[in-house]
C-alpha cells in the first residue's frame, strides 16, 4: 500500500476535481467563493507536489514512473495551474454559472498532464494526453458569446484530433518494430533499428502529438486562433502549463533515439529552424497581443527544440531550464494582459498605450517579461537561451546557433513594439483605468524579482535542471 503515496499529487488533483465537479452542479455558485477555494486548493496542490519531489518508484506494472524528472515537471504544472487560478479573480471572459466547470476542467487537465509526464508506456501516454486534450477542447470554446468563437473550438478539436491520430499511428509502428510499448524497452531496441524508415517515421509521428501541444511548426496552425479565441485565463493555461507537459514528453521521446540517427537529428534541426523563423516573422505583423504571443510561442518551441536535439545531458537540462523560464515570463505577460483587459476582451497592442502612467508596476513587469522572452540579460530568458545555445555549440551546431541568434534579434523587434506601446505611446482615447489590487502587486513584484534574480544567479537552478535530467535513461 505504501506504493500509493507515490501517486499523492495525482490523487490530490482528483480530489480537487471532484470538489469542483460538485460545485458545478450547484445552480447559483458564488464566483467569488469559487475563486477563493480555487486559490486555496491550487496553493495546497503546489505545496503537495513540492513535498513529493524526492519520491522515486514505479506504479501500475511499471507503466508509471515517479522520478525527479517527472516530479519537477509536476511542480511546474502545479505552479502553472496556481498561476492561472490566481488571475481568475476577474474571470469575466466566462459566464459566472460556468465557473465551477472551468475550475473542474482545469484540475482535470492538470491531473492529466501530471500523469503524462510520469507515463513511460505508450498507451498510458496516449490516454493521459487525450484526457488533457479533451479538457482543453472543452475549455477553449467556453467563453462569453461562444458563437463568435465557436470556430476556434472546432479548429482546435480538428487539428488536435488529427495530431492524435498521427501519434497513435506512429506508436503502432514503434510497437510493430520493437514488440513492446514500454519506453525503457524501446530505448534499448530502437537505436539498432532506427536505420529502417518505418522506425524513423514511427518515432516522428509519435512526436507529432507533442509537437502539436508545443505548437511547433508545422503543427502550429491552431495556436494563433486558439490563443485569440479562448478566454484570457484559458489562453494563459495553454501557453504555460500545457507547454510544460509537451516539453517534458518531447524530451522523453527524442531521448528514445539516443542520438543514433543522423537523419532524425537533421529533421529536428530543420523543424526547429522553420519554427523559429516562421513564428518570428509572422509575429511582426500582429496587432492583437495574444496572437503575437501565439506566434512567439511557435518560435520558442523552436528554441527549446535546439536544446533537446543535442541529445546530451546539458542539452536536456538547458531545455528544462528554458521551459521553466518560459513558464514564468509568459505568465507575467498574460497576467498583465488580464489585468489591463479586466472585462476579458482581446487586447490590442495599441490599448497598452500609456501603461507606464496607468500602472508603472505592470508596465515594468511586462517590459521585463518581454525582454526575457527576447533573451536580453540579465533576465532568466537570457540564461535559458544561453544554456540552449551553449549545449548546441558543444555538439558543434554553429550555424544553427547563428540562425537562432538572428531569430532572437528579429523577435526583439516585435517585443520592442509592445514595449514602445506601453512606454512611449500616448493613449488615443480614455481607456478604462487599470485596477491593481494588493494581490497583483505582490505577484508582480515576485515575478520581477524572480525574473531578475534567477537571471543573475542561475547557478542553483542550472544545477536543479541538471539533476532533473540525470535520471533520464
Amino acid at each position, binding site marked *: 500500500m505504501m506504493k500509493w503515496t507515490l501517486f499523492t499529487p495525482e490523487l490530490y488533483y482528483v480530489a480537487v476535481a471532484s470538489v469542483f465537479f460538485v460545485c458545478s452542479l450547484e445552480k447559483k455558485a458564488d464566483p467569488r467563493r469559487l475563486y477563493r477555494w480555487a486559490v486555496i486548493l491550487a496553493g495546497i496542490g503546489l505545496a503537495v507536489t513540492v513535498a513529493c519531489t524526492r519520491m522515486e518508484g514505479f506504479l501500475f506494472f511499471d507503466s508509471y514512473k515517479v522520478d525527479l524528472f517527472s516530479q519537477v515537471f509536476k511542480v511546474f504544472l502545479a505552479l502553472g495551474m496556481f498561476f492561472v487560478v490566481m488571475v481568475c479573480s476577474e474571470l469575466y471572459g466566462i459566464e459566472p454559472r460556468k465557473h465551477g466547470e472551468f475550475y473542474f476542467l482545469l484540475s482535470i487537465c492538470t491531473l492529466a498532464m501530471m500523469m503524462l509526464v510520469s507515463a513511460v508506456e505508450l498507451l498510458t501516454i496516449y490516454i493521459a494526453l487525450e484526457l488533457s486534450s479533451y479538457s482543453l477542447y472543452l475549455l477553449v470554446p467556453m467563453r462569453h458569446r461562444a458563437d463568435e468563437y465557436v470556430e476556434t473550438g472546432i479548429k482546435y478539436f480538428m487539428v488536435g484530433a488529427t495530431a492524435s491520430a498521427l501519434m497513435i499511428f506512429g506508436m503502432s509502428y514503434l510497437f510493430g518494430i520493437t514488440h513492446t510499448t514500454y519506453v525503457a524497452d524501446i530505448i534499448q531496441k530502437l537505436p539498432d533499428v532506427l536505420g529502417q524508415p518505418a522506425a524513423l517515421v514511427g518515432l516522428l509521428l509519435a512526436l507529432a502529438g507533442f509537437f502539436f501541444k508545443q505548437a511547433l511548426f508545422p503543427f502550429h496552425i491552431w495556436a494563433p486562433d486558439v490563443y485569440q479565441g479562448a478566454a484570457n485565463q484559458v489562453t494563459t493555461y495553454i501557453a504555460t502549463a500545457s507547454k510544460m507537459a509537451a516539453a517534458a514528453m518531447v524530451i522523453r521521446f527524442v531521448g528514445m533515439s539516443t542520438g543514433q540517427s543522423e537523419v532524425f537529428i537533421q529533421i529536428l534541426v530543420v523543424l526547429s529552424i522553420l519554427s523559429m523563423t516562421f513564428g518570428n516573422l509572422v509575429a511582426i505583423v500582429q496587432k492583437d497581443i495574444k496572437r503575437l504571443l501565439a506566434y512567439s510561442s511557435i518560435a520558442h518551441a523552436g528554441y527549446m527544440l535546439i536544446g533537446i536535439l543535442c541529445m546530451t545531458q*546539458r542539452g536536456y537540462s538547458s531545455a528544462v531550464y528554458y521551459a521553466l523560464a518560459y513558464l514564468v515570463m509568459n505568465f507575467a505577460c498574460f497576467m498583465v494582459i488580464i489585468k489591463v483587459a479586466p472585462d476579458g476582451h482581446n487586447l490590442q497592442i495599441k490599448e497598452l498605450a500609456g501603461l507606464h502612467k496607468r500602472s508603472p508596476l505592470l508596465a515594468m513587469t511586462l517590459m521585463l517579461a518581454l*525582454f526575457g522572452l527576447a533573451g*536580453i*540579460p*540579465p533576465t532568466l530568458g*537570457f540564461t535559458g537561451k*544561453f*544554456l540552449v*545555445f*551553449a549545449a548546441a*555549440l*558543444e555538439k*558543434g551546431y*554553429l550555424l544553427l*546557433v*547563428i540562425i537562432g*541568434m*538572428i531569430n*532572437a*534579434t528579429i523577435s*526583439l*523587434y516585435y517585443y*520592442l513594439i509592445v*514595449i*514602445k506601446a506601453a*512606454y*512611449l505611446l500616448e493613449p488615443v482615447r480614455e481607456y478604462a483605468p487599470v485596477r491593481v489590487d494588493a494581490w497583483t502587486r505582490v505577484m508582480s513584484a515576485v515575478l520581477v524579482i524572480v525574473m531578475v534574480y534567477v537571471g543573475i544567479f*542561475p*547557478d542553483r537552478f*542550472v*544545477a536543479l535542471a*541538471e539533476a532533473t535530467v540525470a535520471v533520464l535513461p
Partner: protein
Amino acid sequence: MLMTAMEFAQFPVLSAILFSTLLALLVILFIPDDRPHLVKQVSLGFAALGLALSLYVYVAFDPQKGGLQFVERVLWVKSLGIYYFLAADGINVPMILLTAVVLFTGVLTMWELEKRVKEYFALTYLLVAGVYGVFMSMDLFFIFVWYDVSLFPMYPLIAIWGSTRKEYGAMKLTLYLLAGSALILPGILYLWAVAGGTTFDLFELQRLGFDVQVQRIAFVMLYLGFGILAGVWPFHTWSPVGHVAAPTAVSMIHAGVLMKLGAYGILRVGMTLCPEGLVYWADLMALLATIGIVYGAFVGLAQTDLKYVIGYSSVSHMGIVGLGLATMTVDGINGAVFQMFSHGIMTALFFSAVGYIYDKTHTKMIPELGGLSKTMPKASAFFILAAFCGIGVPCMSSFWAELLVFISAVKTYPVRGILAVSGLVVSALFMLRVVQKTFYGDKNPKWEHIPDVPLFLASPRIILVGILIFFGLFPRLILDIIQSAVVPFVNSL
C-alpha cells in the same frame, strides 16, 4: 598567473565603481516623481563618486608592473565555468576613466532636462553600468551580459528624449547592435565549446589556445559582431542616424563610450583569443578601416546637419582605431587605444557643444546658423576646439594618437596608410568648412538675443577641453599605462 577561486588583493575598487552605478539606479528609482532636482543632484553625486574612484584606479595603476591589477575573481556558475572576474590592465584603465568623465560631464550637460527626469537618469545609469561591466570583466560570459545590458537602454533613451526621426533611429540602432550580438554570442560559445566547455575565463582560454581554423572562424564572428558597434564600414549606418536622433548626453555617452565598446571587444576578446585569426583577417580589417576613414570624411563634407557632421566624423575616427588595431604593432595598437580615449572625450565635447546651441536655437542645420562666434563666443569656442582636436592639431591628445596609428599604418600597409592620411586631409577640410559656416561669416539676426553659455553649464565642456589639452601636452601619462599591456600583448602574437 595562477589564481585561487577567490582573490581580493585589496579594496575591490572595480566592483565599487560598477555597483555604485547600479546603486545610483536603485536610489533614483525610489526618489518621488515630483523631485526632479533631487534626481539630478543624486546623479551628479554618484557620477562624481565614480569619477573619483576611476581617477584612483588611473593613479594607483602601476605601469611598471603592468599585467592585471585590482583583480577580483569569484566562481559564479560552476557547471559552465563562469567567473565573476574583474581586473584592470593598461587597456581598460583609460577606458574606465573615459566612461567616468563622459558620465560626469553628461549629467552636467543634461542639467536643464525637464521631461521624465527620473527615468532618464535611471536608464543612463543602467547604460553606464553595462559599459563599466564590459570594460572591467575578464570573463566572456560577463562581457557579453554587460554588453547587452548597455545596449537596450539606448532604445528608450533615444525614442523618448530624442529628436529628428527618433523612433526610426532608436529601432535601427537597437536592431543593428543586437544583430551584432547575434554574432558575438555564437563566437564566444564556439570558443568555449572548442576549449572543452569548462571555462569562460578569458585568460584560461587564452592559455588553452585554439586551432588556426577555429581562430579564423571565431575571429571573423567577433570582429563583425563587435565591429557593428565600433561603426566599421559598411555596418556604420546606424551610427550617424542614432547620434542625430539621441538627446545630447546620450549622444555623448553613445559616441564617446559605447562605440569604444566595439573596438575594445575586438581587441580584448577577438585579438586576445584568436591572434592567428587576426593575422588572417588583418588585411580585411585594414581595408574596411581605410574605407571608413575616407568614406566618413567625404560623406561628412556633404552634411548640413551639425550632428550628422559629427556622426560621420566618428565613423572616420573609429576607422583610425580599426586601422591601428589591424597593424598588429606596438605603436599601432598604442595609438588605437589612445585614439579610443581621445576620440571619446572629443566627441563628447562636440555633442555637448552642439547640445547647447541646439537647446537655444532649436536648430542644428548649418545654413540656418552662421556667425555664432559673435553672439556666443564661449559656446562656439568649445566646438571649434573639438574640431581642432578632430583634425589632429598638435597639443591636442588625438594628435599623438593619430600620429602613432598613421606612422605604423604607413609602415605596415603603405597604400592604405597613405589613403587614410589623405582622408584626414578631407576631414580637416569638412571640419573647417563647418566651423567657418556655423561660427564665422554673417550673423543671423535671429540668434542675437541668445545669451552665451553660463559658467555652470559650461563646466562640463571646460573639463573635456582640459583633458584633451592635458593629454595632448603630456601623452606619456596615458601612453605608459597603455603600453604596459600592449607590449606583452604584441610580443605574444
